Structure formats: C-alpha cells, structure tokens
C-alpha cells in the first residue's frame, strides 16, 4: 500500500478520530498530535492493515487507547490538562458556539463526564455509531454500553434541567 492509498483509506474517518481524541484530551493541539501518532502507528502496520475487516474500528480503538494512555501518564506526573482552547477553535465553529452560549456549557457538561461515558456519548450521540461498534471499540458487551449510555444521558439531563430551572449554570 502506498501513501496515497493509505491517505484515501483513512480520509473518511480521520475527523472522527480527531473528534474522539479531542473529546478525551480536550485540547485541540493534543488531539491533533494524538491523531497524528495513531496515523503513524497505522501506517507502520501498513502490510497487516488489509487483514483487518474494519480499519476504521481498529483506528478508533487505537485512538481511544492512545488517549487514555496519554491521560494516565499526565495524571501520573500530576499534570492536569486544563485547556479551554480560547483562540484555536475553528473560526466558524467558535462563532456559532459563542452565538449560543448555552452550547458551550453542554460541551462542558459532556467533558465533565467520566472517560468511558464520554467515549460512549461521543460515539453514539455525535458519531451515530451502532451499539455493536461501540461495544467492540470499548471491549464491553452491548448491554453494558446501553446502561452506561443511559446513565451518561441522565447525568446530562439532570444538569441541563437544573440549569434550565435556575436560569444559570452553577459551574
């Protein structure tokens, strides 16, 4: 497989990898680096790639594992990633998010979830994946994925309704 073939294979899900990485790592730069790293890993596997029935599922699994490792090593060295991406968000997207300030606290609520729930919300509600796919990426069974998804959605609902009723976000 040459470089062009490889790029055309990864193109359809490259953004999906990036969004998952960003959901977990929060910072755009870190997500970019992570995506890059995972792509290099995939490229080095070059010859074996054709054996896998879904390169996309594998890419997502590697991305997930890589990001979780990153988070683990950051935590081990007592560095907490607190990143708000004040300036580097895509201009259009940032504009629209600022237009509706409420959207940014929805983002915050999702980012405050535990990692596993974050991944599930990202895969299901944003990327619209089937439970089967999510289950294989997370190495869990489908029922467990459903339960965790429902739990995550309820946490989000609770925070949203609280904010809605009080008229302001508490944090």
């Amino acid at each position, binding site marked *: 497989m040459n*470089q062009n073939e*490889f*790029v055309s294979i990864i193109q359809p899900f*490259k*953004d999906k*990898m*990036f*969004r998952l990485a*960003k959901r977990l790592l929060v910072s*755009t730069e870190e*997500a*970019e680096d992570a*995506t*890059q790293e995972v*792509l*290099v890993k995939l*490229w*080095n596997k070059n010859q074996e790639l054709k054996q896998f029935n879904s390169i996309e599922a594998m890419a997502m699994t590697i991305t997930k594992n890589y990001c979780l490792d990153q988070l683990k090593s950051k935590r081990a060295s007592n560095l907490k990633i607190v990143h708000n991406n004040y300036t580097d968000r*895509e201009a259009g*997207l940032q504009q*629209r*998010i600022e237009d*509706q300030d*409420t*959207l940014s*606290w*929805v*983002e915050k609520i*999702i980012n405050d979830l535990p990692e596993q729930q974050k991944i599930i919300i990202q895969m299901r*509600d*944003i*990327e*619209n994946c*089937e439970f089967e796919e999510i289950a294989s990426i997370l190495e869990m069974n489908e029922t467990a994925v*459903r*339960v965790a*998804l*429902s739990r995550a*959605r*309820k946490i*989000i*609902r609770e925070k*949203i*309704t609280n904010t*809605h009723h009080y008229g302001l976000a508490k944090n």
Partner: protein
Amino acid sequence: MDWQKIEQLIDKYFEGTTSLEEEMVLKNYFSQENVADELKQFQPLFSYLQLAKEETAPNKTVLKSKKPFKKWISIAAVFILIASLTTIWNLKATDSQDLGTFDDPEIAYAETLKALELLASNVNYGMESVNYINEYEYSKNLIFKN
C-alpha cells in the same frame, strides 16, 4: 410532529433505548424553529450533538514514510563496518607480533648469531657504498688544493 410523541422519544432516549433513526428524528426536530416550550430545555443538547460532528481535524497530517527495513539496513551496515575494521586490525596485530620462538638455548644462540651476522654483513655492504663518498673528498681536494 406533535410534541407528545417527541416527549416519548426523549424519555426513550434517556433510557438508552432509542434507535439511531429515532435519535435522528429528535435531532431534526430540535434543529427546526418551532420547538414546544416544554421541550425547549433540550434544544441546546441536541444542537450541540449535531454541531460537534462538524468539527474537522486540522489538515496537516504529514506521514513520515519510514519503512522499517531501512532502519535494519543501516544497523547491518554499521555492524559489518565494525566487524571488518576489527578483523583487519586483528590481522595486522598478529602479523607483527607472532615472531616464533626457540626452546633450546643453543639453537637460540646460533640463530641470534646468524641474525646478527646478517645484520653485520648488511651494514658492511652499506659501508662499502658509503666509502665512495671518500672519492668526492679526494676529487674535491684535487680541485681546491688546500
């Protein structure tokens, strides 16, 4: 679509039992203008979920096209270089050091004599040639008559 039906879907959604199609229905409902007041609170959530999918990776993916075998070639090259250098060095070292030895002192003495005689005869042979220098001295004296 009437909002009671949407509300039912929302309940299903939070139980985690909606299908992808039903979730699509919800997202479409919340992306249009007239959302029922009772459901307005969920609008930001569904708008965010749709919006978040639009974010794309910054387009700078540059693949380092490193093929693993190239690394091995360089490692092998360095290895061969070191190996050949050491063998050459070892060969040279053994050439100059291994002169042989004699066990019997008399033979050793005889051999030493032989070697010294060889040396002496060569030195004498050299001296013979040096004697010609005297010829220059002689002719110089003839010419300058001092």
